């Protein structure tokens, strides 16, 4: 393997230089995120308002349909659905967008020297920004349905943070894999479907038994959704087990994903 070494030792301390670099990357990520979001809505009339509108509409559809199907309805069903959907949406938006990010940004990856993690960060960050816009709709609905929110809700950002961490880790792995195998895209679509149905977004887990119960409870996304519902709707604190699961999945996925991307960096550059 080739290596680079520095011929000159800079007079400027390396710390400030590092900070400079970090600042530059942050600026870059912000600009790239801006591009993603502007592009996403560039040909629509309502633009960014869709970020608020679409979770509302999706919630309405699910709530209307499923309250008709299930006779034993869940209290605050619209909020129940919306909480699930927002967390799930954050994860899938980040993962789906990140999947193709390295391939999409091929020219930039080759010509410009900055770490390729930046591209994954960008897409996940876009998903997060989108999520924050959806929060507007979410808060609106909490008021409309008179969900009495207590200070437990302060734990909500923590849950979102770990969800994002988990999403980032998954994104790293997916983006790397997609460079080598285009099939991942289709496979991932199927897995997303599976995750959707095992995340208890529109049904209650109370009556579950047997294998499906185990599957659902092992699903990390369900755990995030469930915890979010607990702190927002039910004024409960997630149990210790849930917390451990939450942190474990977030940190583990991130570490694994980061390692995978790092390890394959050269291969990706050559392959691309």
């Amino acid at each position, binding site marked *: *393997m*080739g*290596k*680079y*070494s*520095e*011929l*000159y030792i*800079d007079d400027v301390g390396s710390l400030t*230089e590092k900070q400079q670099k970090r*600042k*530059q990357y942050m*600026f*870059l990520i*912000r*600009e*790239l995120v*801006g*591009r993603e979001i*502007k*592009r996403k809505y*560039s*040909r629509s*009339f*309502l633009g960014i*308002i869709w970020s608020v*509108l679409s979770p*509302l*509409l999706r919630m*309405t559809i699910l*709530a*209307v349909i499923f*309250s008709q199907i299930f*006779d*034993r*309805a*869940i*209290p605050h*069903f*619209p909020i129940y659905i919306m909480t699930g959907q927002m967390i799930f949406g954050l994860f899938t938006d980040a993962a789906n967008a990140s999947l193709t990010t390295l391939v999409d940004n091929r*020219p*930039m*990856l*080759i*010509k*410009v*020297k*900055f770490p390729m993690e930046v591209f994954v960060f960008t897409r996940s960050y876009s998903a997060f920004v989108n999520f924050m816009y959806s929060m507007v709709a979410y808060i609106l609905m909490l008021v*409309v*349905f008179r969900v009495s929110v207590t200070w437990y809700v302060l734990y909500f950002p923590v849950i979102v943070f770990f969800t994002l961490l988990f999403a980032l880790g998954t994104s790293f792995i997916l983006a790397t894999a997609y460079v080598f*195998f*285009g*099939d*991942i895209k289709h*496979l991932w679509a199927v897995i997303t479907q599976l995750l959707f149905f095992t995340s208890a977004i529109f049904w209650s887990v109370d009556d579950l038994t047997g294998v499906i119960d185990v599957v659902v409870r092992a699903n990390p996304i369900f755990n995030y959704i469930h915890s979010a519902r607990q702190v927002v709707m039910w004024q409960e604190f997630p149990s210790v087990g849930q917390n451990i699961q939450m942190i474990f999945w977030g940190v583990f996925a991130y570490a694994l994903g980061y390692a995978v991307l790092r390890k394959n960096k*050269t291969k990706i*550059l*050559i392959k691309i």
Partner: protein
Amino acid sequence: MKKRFSLKLILLILLLVFLPSKTVQAEGETIAFGSEGYLWNLNEQVEVGIHFVAPYPVNQLEMLVTFEDRFLEFIAGGELIEPGVVRLAPGPLFDGAYSTMLNFHTRMAGDTSISIRYVNVHTDVGINSEFPSVTSPIRIEAPESSRLGGIHINGYDLEQFDSALFHYIIEVGYEIEMPEIGVTTIDPEATVEISDRNLSVGENRIVIVVNSPVTGSAQYVLTIHRQEASETPIVEEETVEEETDFAGLTSEASVIHEANPSVATRNQVIFTIVLLFLVLVLIALFYLKMNFNRTRKKEEIRRRNEERRLERRRRSLQTSQDANEYQKSSLDDYEDFDHIEDFRLVDERKIVLQVEGISMDFTREKDEASSLKELAIRIIRRKRNINKFRALNDITFSVKEGEVIGIIGTNGSGKSTLLKIISGALPPTEGSVVVDRDKIQLLTLGTGFDGELTGRENVYLNGAIIGYSKEFIDEKYDEIVEFAELDGFMDEKVRNYSSGMVSRLAFSVATIRDTPEILILDEVLSVGDAHFKVKSNARIKKQIRSGSTVLIVSHSASTIREICTSAIWIEKSKLMMYGDTASVCAAYERMNK
């Protein structure tokens, strides 16, 4: 369990103490049941005492005892004339008194009653049948596994539900025509039947029967008052209903929480309002946007025309001179280069870039497995046809400060790969590059340009990508726009730009920076129309002249000759020649012939 038991006890005491008399007295006759109310268990033998007393002799007494056949099975004590009706006809009664016991078997749990009707007293005087009927309430307790665990109406739990109580009174709004009734049973094996749920305005009775295969059935009754249309549908207050069936005893039990079903209705109303609101907002925004677009389009067209006019004028002014001027200017530059070269001949310069034995291999599978399935098959068959392709083979050279190096070679000889390795985009397979990477700048045009963004946004985005800080772009923004001659177009989407405008902007952004210490150019960049070409060439040359080290890749010997101080010739991945421009270019041209 204990609670339920104590509840029973209280009921029993109340039953014995507070019950108003159910005795019927007319002209001195007394017709009564043995008890004012009955509390039985399911599947047991029970007795009902019937007492008749008259202060005169009776020739014949005739009475009908009615009961609900579903709850009670008649066993003995009278003549069963039809299901649920027992006839008693004793006589003659000389003392006017009569007592008897009827035996029943309880066959279903729930609240029911037993009545004495149609009493005919035959005396010497005649027949007296003017007796009101006498009724005694009966509650048949359900065993645990025949009971319901809960009742939900339109998804809301019936709050007052107690599995030992069989009757509930509920009030609902007019808009509920058919409530959803869900129940849970304590015994999972039990089945439930619910009667017709259609509600008419006023009082409705819905019967829920639980059938447990083990312990038998129990019946729960919901009395639902559906409000009239005019009444306000939103009610949340509790309505306290007095239940008199069980002699006022169960009034506690039948204090029913209303409200829950109407919460559901209220949600629906809110839902509709929110949706309507959203739709309205959508329409309003749509309208605004349309208007806005229309005005903007007009403006755009106006601007376009203006630009076209300007451009035409400029062209007419310049076309005549352009060619000459361009020639002249490049000649000037060429002369300038001679000076620089002279200046640079003084050596003792530092080596800023050292390329040591670089090789680059690309492994390509012959026909690449682009799918997992293919890969799996290939791995299993061990038939991965890997082709090693050597793009660069042991390249070594060094560049001193201030040199302008031309890298020459035919297409596909590995020039671009070499540039990528030097700029750090690709790590080499073998060898190393010694350089301060922060000082290297690969000049690229329009990386990350996006048609959907405005000119201004693209300047910031592209700037960020090629490494400008925000402050730097803020500071240089006006200069960039001015150089690109795009004043007034910066807030338009780049997709509406002409290709010339895009390349002018890209060039302007890429070259605004202070000259980097090591500049790498993939082909000399000159973009735009003839007029702008002059400008862009001048700027590139200024950068080259300003004392930085420059690497230029080109396949044209004339460009290299014009600008460079020395040249590197790479052919078929190998370094063919490295030396002064003239001789390298001569050798290259000779080979090409």
